[in-house]
């Protein structure tokens, strides 16, 4: 542990070389892509127009689980205007293998089968065939002419039933990886994982009280407003171009290459502006299909999902069943904690249960822990990450039990968190030891916030508190930055900008070079035009692409110093750069600004280009948030109204505070929707009954109050400006905070998400001895 500390301290010293009084960092410039986005000029994926463009459509399974006996596409192909029809047979034979997609590995067969079903349809909405035609309407008409012979099989909709022996199997060849041992019988449980620390039994023996609780959460969707889209053109030279809405052009390239069995270099992915992702635009759905349709028709093909397709066939995040057992002493100290998390993977293995396992007790310093996780197949869409994937479900369980313990021990909810809170040096259940983190600081800031002590006026009102953690990731980013003769810098990035990261990255480059944010011209480019980049995800872009921009800026600074040296005829070592001014170390008359120097590049050796390609995995700082919420519960209807919300978070260093606040506010809104109304509502045949914005019920402007934010800045030692990822943490606490507030307002503990009016009402009626008769 000591060694860890020392190592970190060294890094902090290095960081301190950059002045802490910033000129650009921490200011709020207008984002570089802003005007295009407020005038409607920004080009998103669905806006792509190409000469001769065909429009595609996808036929989807109406059944949750069915064997596909045959597909007859003859009538569809014969419809005038139809240029291509494909099924999984057009993907070609596959040798199954595990493909590494940079940020996760998956079986190629599963990757392909999710694009176009072969053999079995495994969820309602599973793609079965696709067409391309001269208009979207003709494509839709053609889909109706495709005849599929299904043998309908029983759906598997309930997580716990799916785990039972004898449940209908999704994959007859899938055996459980049970703590490293392969199960004898095939099963819907893909994996059983465990984290363990200390001696659980010993811990529980020290407890004055043990709390055992059980939680259920429903599958929910990321709910980005822009539907998935992809346009592909398979050129006669074998080069494939894909325009799409994605969190990562390079992951699209990698997945498409694997599915289509092409070298990555023959695919160029052009990431268009992206209308929200939240983890849901990492998996490919349409891109390879559009490519195959283009190959078959010889023309560019555009596929755009409608909203129902987005709900039915793209990645929601896992519904879950979580059991928590926590032992506490009378003084509020937690002595042992155990959890069992079962997460829905959907139709193919790969839920992010492991993230839930990592996060469930992560805010606390607990000696004895055991956490088991199960990855479980159900006949629902393959799940995808969703903003701090797995952590929100987990925190709903742990943070509401903690609230119960606080009440039992007679301790303030913020205080019990402080009492047990993790800090630098705390070892998590997964074994890792925290570097400098800011959890306790968020608790302190929450306590000081006026919201924490404001009186609650009126009946049926209550206040809840909860905290949350996300580890944040670094991964790989590459940028290039070219100095222009007018003293500006063109910055080329490969991480799609979903929430203002062009600007937050450009600001870091500007800070190092002593430029204004507006002097940097950032753009996100295609996969042929920049080095490899991992996805915009894991709250990593401002951190990792920012680090790359800082490196590129330093590269430019070195080169510019050399140019100044050349101008003055002195050795480069004599030139010192600071704040955009290059000075001779000893001759004070010799100084030149970045802008002046940029105008003289031609006479000193030609263009200057800075570049950086980094793997920043080592230093991503974990993030913590603590939320306070007031609600009013209508005891007659069970409806919960959010009255006031405050989100406190350790953000490390806010590069552009407005967009950091925006991340917190957006995370809260999503978390509140998940908490109160959002869910995948399946009928007993496994058909999604609410695949529309109307019935999925995401929060509107009228459902939320202003969301107050407090940015706590405990610098991440792994970043020269102290940046931590901020995007994911804020979705983690809201369901628990709301559950705790509902309890204090209405006296009922809700342990199932969503806590919609029906559930709250049922709990209130049951508490009053009048449980509803559901006959």
């Amino acid at each position, binding site marked *: 542990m000591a*060694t*860890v500390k020392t*190592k970190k301290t060294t890094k902090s010293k290095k960081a301190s070389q950059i002045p802490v009084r910033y000129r650009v960092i921490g200011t709020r410039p207008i984002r570089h892509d802003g005007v295009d986005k407020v005038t409607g000029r920004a080009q998103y994926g669905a806006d792509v127009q190409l000469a001769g463009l065909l429009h595609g459509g996808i036929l989807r399974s109406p059944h949750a689980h069915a064997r596909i006996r045959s597909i007859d596409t003859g009538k569809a192909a014969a419809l005038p205007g139809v240029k291509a029809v494909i099924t999984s047979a057009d993907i070609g034979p596959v040798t199954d293998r*595990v*493909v*590494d997609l940079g*940020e*996760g*590995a998956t079986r190629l067969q599963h990757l392909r089968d999710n694009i176009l079903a072969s053999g079995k349809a495994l969820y309602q909405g599973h793609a079965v065939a696709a067409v391309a035609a001269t208009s979207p309407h003709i494509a839709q008409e053609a889909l109706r002419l495709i005849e599929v012979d299904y043998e309908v099989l029983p759906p598997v909709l309930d997580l716990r039933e799916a785990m039972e022996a004898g449940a209908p199997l999704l994959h007859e060849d899938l055996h459980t*990886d049970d*703590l*490293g*041992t392969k199960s004898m019988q095939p099963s819907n449980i893909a994996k059983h*994982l*465990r*984290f*363990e620390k200390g001696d659980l039994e010993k811990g529980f023996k020290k407890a004055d009280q043990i709390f055992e609780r059980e939680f259920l959460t429903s599958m929910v969707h*990321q709910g980005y407003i822009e539907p998935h889209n992809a346009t592909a053109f398979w050129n006669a030279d074998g080069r494939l171009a894909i325009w799409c809405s994605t969190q990562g052009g390079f992951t699209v390239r990698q997945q498409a290459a694997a599915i289509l069995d092409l070298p990555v270099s023959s695919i160029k992915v052009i990431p268009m502006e992206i209308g929200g*992702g*939240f*983890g*849901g635009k990492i998996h490919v759905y349409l891109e390879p299909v559009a490519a195959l349709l283009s190959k078959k028709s010889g023309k560019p093909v555009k596929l755009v999902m409608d909203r129902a397709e987005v709900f039915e066939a793209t990645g929601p995040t896992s519904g879950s069943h979580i059991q928590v057992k926590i032992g506490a002493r009378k003084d509020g100290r937690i002595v042992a904690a155990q959890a069992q998390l079962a997460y829905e993977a959907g139709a193919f293995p790969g839920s*992010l249960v*492991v*993230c839930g396992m990592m996060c469930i007790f992560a805010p606390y310093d607990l000696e004895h822990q055991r956490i088991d996780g199960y990855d479980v197949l159900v006949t629902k869409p393959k799940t995808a*990450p*969703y*903003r*701090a*994937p797995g952590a929100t479900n987990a925190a709903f369980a742990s943070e509401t039990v903690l609230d119960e313990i606080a009440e039992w021990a007679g301790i303030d909810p913020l205080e019990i968190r402080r009492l047990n809170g993790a800090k630098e040096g705390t070892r998590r259940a*997964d*074994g*890792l*030891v*925290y*570097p400098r983190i800011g959890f306790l600081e968020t608790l302190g800031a929450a306590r000081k916030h006026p919201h924490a002590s404001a009186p609650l006026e009126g009946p049926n009102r209550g206040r809840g508190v909860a905290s949350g953690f*996300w*580890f*944040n*990731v*670094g*991964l790989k980013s590459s940028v290039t930055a070219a100095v222009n003769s007018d003293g500006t810098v063109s910055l080329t990035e490969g991480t799609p900008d979903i929430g203002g990261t062009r600007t937050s990255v450009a600001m870091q480059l500007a800070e190092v070079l002593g430029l204004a944010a507006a002097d940097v011209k950032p753009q996100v480019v295609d996969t042929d035009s920049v080095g490899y980049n*991992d*996805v915009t*995800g*894991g*709250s*990593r872009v401002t951190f990792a692409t920012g680090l790359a921009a800082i490196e590129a800026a330093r590269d430019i600074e070195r080169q510019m110093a050399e140019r100044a040296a050349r101008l003055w005829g002195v050795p480069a070592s004599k030139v010192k750069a600071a704040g955009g001014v290059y000075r001779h170390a000893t001759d004070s008359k010799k100084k030149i600004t970045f802008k002046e120097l940029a105008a003289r590049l031609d006479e000193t050796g030609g263009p200057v280009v800075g570049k950086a390609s980094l*793997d920043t*995995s*080592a*230093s*991503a700082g974990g993030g913590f948030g603590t939320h306070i919420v007031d609600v009013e519960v209508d005891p007659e209807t069970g409806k919960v109204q959010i009255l006031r919300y405050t989100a406190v978070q350790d953000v490390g260093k806010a590069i552009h505070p407005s967009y950091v606040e925006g991340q917190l506010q957006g995370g809260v809104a999503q978390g509140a929707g998940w908490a109160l109304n959002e869910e995948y509502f399946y009928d007993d045949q496994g058909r999604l009954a609410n695949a529309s914005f109307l019935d999925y019920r995401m929060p509107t402007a009228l459902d939320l109050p202003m969301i107050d934010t407090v940015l706590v800045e405990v610098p991440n030692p792994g970043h020269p400006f102290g940046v931590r990822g901020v*995007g*994911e943490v804020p979705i983690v606490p809201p369901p628990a905070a709301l559950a705790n507030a509902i309890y204090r307002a209405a006296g009922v503990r809700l342990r199932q998400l969503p806590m919609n009016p029906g559930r709250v009402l049922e709990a209130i009626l049951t508490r009053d001895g009048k449980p509803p008769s559901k006959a």
Partner: protein
Amino acid sequence: MPTVFIPAQLQSFTGGARKVEVKGKTLREVIEALDAAFPGLRDRLVEGDRLRPGLAVAIDSVICSAGLRQAVRKDSEVHFIPAISGG
């Protein structure tokens, strides 16, 4: 000697031991030493000349990016963890 934390799914190789100490100055050496002590472990950690897809290594709680060449000190802790990113 570096301490290797054995994930639950590999503890069947170590007879249930959660932590073992092995010699090694690089991750490669550590894994070789592990495999010598607990035959078969290497194949669960390494594929060809690389870590298996989906697996990451943290040395002293820092996720490392140098693969099997990563340096390991005498008092280091080595953790094998799932490679994951986020939303």
